[in-house]
């Protein structure tokens, strides 16, 4: 590693990848066109890159972390390397910022985690992550006819409000059922907070944002189930499902704090 550089950790892979030519596992360049390489860590291999300290070191993170123009290429560069590695081997993605002073510091810090990392890597081995978003595209609550008197108007308003509440409860039930259906064919599932409009860039509100760890051999089953719940449950109620992936298993890289998987998920919630 060169002077004036920091080590950026992308992810963790099994040590067997050290026995094959490096270019078959890692892409030639990563964040900002910098080189990517493998670093041995006991039974594991860490995918690392050498980044100029000026521009990507701790000071740079402090200065620019809130600047989307700086952050976007870093995040995308990190992700693209992990996508490439995930196509070649099992990988446990590490999250940003992951800057170390040098190889020795990284080995010292991650070395203490070798056992949980190895276990987690085995857990995600042979799996992909798939992202699921459900958007509400059409409110199915009925429009009231024009009121002819004040009394009519008030009655209609009351009915409308009741109708909206009922529609929301019904969507809630459908989303819970849809999520449970997907979780059934997944090894593990997590619910994330739906992205707000500012983040998703969409007018249609997001009602469900989940990630699913799916075994490669269960992929068709997962898609079939997605199709089933989408057509059978969501679309009739004006909701559209979008699937993204395959992702490296970002949402499943860290062991759950309480050791529980999807079983204890309370289910999705719309609003309060």
């Amino acid at each position, binding site marked *: 590693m060169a002077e004036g550089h920091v080590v950026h950790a992308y992810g963790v892979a099994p040590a067997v990848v050290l026995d094959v030519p490096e270019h078959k596992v890692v892409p030639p360049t990563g964040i900002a066109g910098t080189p990517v390489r493998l670093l041995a860590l006991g039974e594991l291999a860490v995918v690392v890159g050498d980044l100029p300290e000026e521009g990507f070191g701790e000071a740079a993170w402090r200065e620019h*972390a*809130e*600047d*989307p123009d700086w*952050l976007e290429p870093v*995040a*995308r560069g*990190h*992700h693209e390397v992990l*996508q490439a590695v995930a196509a070649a081997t099992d990988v446990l*993605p590490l*999250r*940003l*910022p992951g800057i170390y002073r040098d190889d020795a510091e990284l080995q010292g810090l991650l070395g203490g985690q070798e056992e949980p990392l190895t276990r987690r890597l085995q857990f995600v081995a042979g799996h992909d992550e798939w*992202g*699921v978003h459900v*958007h*509400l*595209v059409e*409110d199915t*609550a009925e429009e009231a006819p024009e009121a002819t008197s004040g009394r009519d108007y008030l009655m209609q308003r009351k009915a*409308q*409000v009741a109708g*909206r509440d009922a529609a*929301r409860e019904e969507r809630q039930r459908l989303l819970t059922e849809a999520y449970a259906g997907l979780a059934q064919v997944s090894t593990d599932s997590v619910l*994330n*907070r*739906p*992205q*707000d*409009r*500012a*983040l*998703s*860039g*969409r*007018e*249609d*509100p*997001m*009602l469900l944002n989940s990630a699913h760890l799916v075994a490669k051999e269960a992929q068709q089953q997962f*898609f079939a189930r*997605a*199709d089933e719940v*989408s*057509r059978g449950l969501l*679309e009739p109620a004006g909701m*559209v*499902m*979008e*699937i*993204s*992936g*395959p*992702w490296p298993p*970002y*949402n499943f890289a860290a062991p759950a704090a309480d050791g529980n998987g999807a079983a204890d998920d309370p289910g999705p919630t*719309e*609003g*309060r």
Partner: protein
Amino acid sequence: MTQSPEGPVSRSQGPVFVGNRTPRPESLADVLERVLDKGIVIVGDIQVRLLDIELLTIKLRLMIASVDRAREMGINWWEGDPFVTNLEEGDDSGASDRELELQQRVEALERRLGSDGQEQQLEGQPERQREGEETRRG
């Protein structure tokens, strides 16, 4: 807005695939959400529009912190703030009620902001006071 390579979203096509199965790159929101560890959310100046009426322009800071870390820092506005929650709720019918409600909230916020400013000046500790306020407001 939502396009799949097979064409626009149709109500009878089942789920829409985005991401690697299409030429469309992953959305930045999806990448950040994954890469930044429950990374919060937000992005520059955001114009909130409702029924084409610009009601508010709020400035939200891009924050990089895990949710837990953010809670430690006293930042949890997205949980309790009825405005944020309403945005996520995604029920745009009854917008005139919402509009009125929002206007009332804007007024309340403006009042609150105004009175904070006075307090700060009176107490002569603007920085500390402001930090405390933000945390409590959080």
